[in-house]
């Protein structure tokens, strides 16, 4: 077994794997969408392998403003708080937290503290209700230790930055296992030129799903062919994602965007178990609704339906690539009861793909 220091980690593109036809944004990450920030709090010691990741959709000074949100619950066996406002209103200003399924209450409470910091009348704005989505990372993490505290949600918020997103075995992805390998946080983006402006669709995925034999990369059933590595297969599958775009989109279009992210995941596989979590929250920074008393009407501009397909394609491509990036970036982690989830050996895998394609 290699140690994490010796493992060479890289994005899919660096390894020579080009998925889809649209070009990525400059960072090839969700932060290519202007204003979006990502932060992690990582807990990695012994049998505690877990954490919190937050996606902040907009700058912190944005008080009394709302953005459009959408979601797609492919399988809801897990938690997504804030879902009533999201589904019924389609506009909010909520941060999106990811964590383990045992930590939802504490992270939510951190979201409340964060909200009060923005607005003393919490439910009038303040980013309430916080969205908290969860995965079950018990393969590596001692869930019952309940190591995540409120402060870790606040730490993730504090550390949130634009620019390159830390990925792999970090934040909520610290203990994640996908396709029998070490999973975790992965991100990718696509650039779409629209009406003389450059826009982006960015996806961040927390990959904790799939059995080894289900793994398909670029159409190659590598999981079935894999013979020589120990598999960390487990039954606690869950994958959650966040899609961001600076394209002005309606809540309905954002629901569709979230659906397409799941379609992108599906190209890799691992979504077919009976009790699994697979859900996506999408938001657009392209329309900012100033919610002030004097406002009587909003004049909104959306992408017309005739032009929307390329954005949906972008979401699927970026979602697919974000899962591969999670695998390629994640480092080997040893967790509870001596269990190990091995990092994907990228070179071996790429050789398999090239051989198959030839």
């Amino acid at each position, binding site marked *: 077994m290699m140690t994490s220091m010796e493992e060479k980690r890289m994005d899919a593109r660096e390894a020579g794997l080009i998925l889809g036809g649209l070009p990525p944004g400059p960072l090839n990450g969700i932060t290519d969408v202007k204003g979006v920030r990502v932060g992690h709090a990582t807990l990695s010691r012994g049998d505690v392998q877990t954490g919190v990741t937050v996606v902040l959709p907009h700058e912190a000074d944005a008080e009394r403003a709302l953005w459009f949100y959408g979601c797609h*619950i492919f399988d*809801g066996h897990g938690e997504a708080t804030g*879902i*009533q406002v999201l589904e019924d209103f389609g506009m909010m200003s909520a941060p999106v937290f990811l964590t383990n399924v045992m930590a*939802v*209450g504490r992270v939510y409470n951190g979201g409340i503290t964060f909200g*009060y910091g923005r607005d003393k009348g919490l*439910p009038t704005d303040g980013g309430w209700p916080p969205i908290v989505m969860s995965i*079950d990372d018990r393969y590596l993490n001692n869930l019952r230790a309940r190591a995540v505290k409120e402060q870790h949600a606040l730490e993730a918020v504090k550390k949130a930055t634009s620019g390159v997103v830390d990925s792999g075995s970090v934040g909520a992805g610290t203990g994640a296992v996908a396709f029998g390998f070490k999973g975790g946080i992965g991100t990718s983006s696509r650039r779409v030129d629209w009406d003389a402006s450059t826009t982006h669709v960015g996806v961040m995925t927390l990959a904790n799903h799939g059995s080894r034999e289900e793994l398909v990369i670029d159409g190659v059933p590598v999981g079935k062919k894999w013979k020589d590595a120990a598999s960390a297969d487990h039954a606690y599958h869950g994958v959650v994602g966040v899609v961001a775009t600076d394209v002005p989109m309606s809540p309905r279009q954002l629901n569709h965007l979230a659906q397409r992210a799941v379609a992108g995941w599906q190209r890799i596989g691992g979504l077919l178990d009976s009790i699994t979590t697979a859900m996506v929250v999408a938001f657009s920074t392209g329309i900012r609704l100033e919610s002030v008393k004097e406002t009587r009407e909003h004049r909104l501009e959306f992408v017309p339906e005739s032009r929307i397909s390329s954005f949906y394609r972008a979401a699927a491509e970026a979602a697919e690539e974000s899962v591969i990036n999670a695998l390629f970036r994640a480092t080997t982690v040893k967790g509870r009861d001596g269990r190990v989830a091995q990092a994907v050996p990228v070179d071996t895998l790429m050789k398999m793909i090239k051989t198959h394609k030839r």
Partner: protein
Amino acid sequence: MTQENKYPKAGPFSRFLLGISRRRFLRLSTGSMAGGFVGCLLNREEWAAGSDGTSPWGENRTRLRELGIEIGRYPPGPYNAITDVRGVRVGHCTKISGSGKLRVGVGPVRTGVTVIMPHKGNVFEEKLAVGHFVLNGNGEMTGFVRDREAGTLETPIFLTGTANIGIVYDAALTYLMEQNPDIGISENVPVPVVAECWDAMGDTEGRHITEQDVLNAIKAASGGPVAEGAVGGGTGMRSYGFKAGIGSSSRVLPDERGGYTVGVLVNANHGSRHLLRIDGVPVGEELLDYPEKKESGKSKSIIMVAATDAPMLPVQLQRLCKRLALGLARTGSVSTHGSGDIFIAFSTGNRITKNSKEFLCVDDSMVSRLWEAAVEAAEEAVLNALTSAPTMDGKDDRVCEGIPLDRLVSLMQKYNRLRR
């Protein structure tokens, strides 16, 4: 105990309170809160209403029926509460302390938690069919996504203030983990159902609920009469410009209609004064002159929980949930933009385990009467929250009046809607 002993700062409204506290109403008796009042009394500043229905503010409060006002045509169960559904238990933990100016982290504290235990067994092991309806989504009910996906309820249902959601959620997990040592090891982690309303009468930001408070509410859960009004999760709630909070009611169908019971429990924190209607009477309009102090924080909500022993599919329970909205509408609500009007209904008619292969459900020819019962119980539960809740002061000495019961009775008489 005198009012002064119980409550250190009665304020300028005491004259008014004392004025009505001496009044007797039709059959107003000790029965209004016969269930007693389960509080977590942590220090001398925290107290609770006595089981004789006397509030610490010196008012006698009672239930709608005790005033001679009866809603609908079906009879209520023996307790006229959600606990008439066999096995359902309710527990409250009430946190009240301090008064005067808001000091974050100190008080005044006007909050609490109410728990509904769906059956006497282990609900994580033996789940119940569940349905939901979101009338207006400006609220939070955790566990919604999981329960909607699975069609089952696997935890007790908790009602609390908006800011307490995370704490109550986490405490619920503590309870469930103690009860089920395999959770997180060989068993999946449950997603507790915690629903909120904005209890802006007190220091919300201070989040005065602790894990122990939640566990105390669970421990206090019992069948029988349900304490209503400013108790548990309803402590800091207002509705239609009056003090409100927890209310409950039930209906029993005749044997030829299946003999089923439908029980409803609400946490009422919604609506403006002018909207209030009781049994069709425009009570709100008639009471517009009654003092109403404007409170800050416009977001108001109502959470409605229905239970029935009629065996029902999740889709049928979803349909039942929509009828709760009709009962709510009869009390005048228009479900305003800021309102989180979220409803959940469960049936005790099936216990569902991982290997369940059989399911009992009522024929759809039976459901219309169940809907009628649900509408009646929902309406009466909201009104019980109003008539049971006493006048209470909140942060910055803002007073929220209880609905004046003497005027309510004369109004109903005027409109010829008094049953006895």
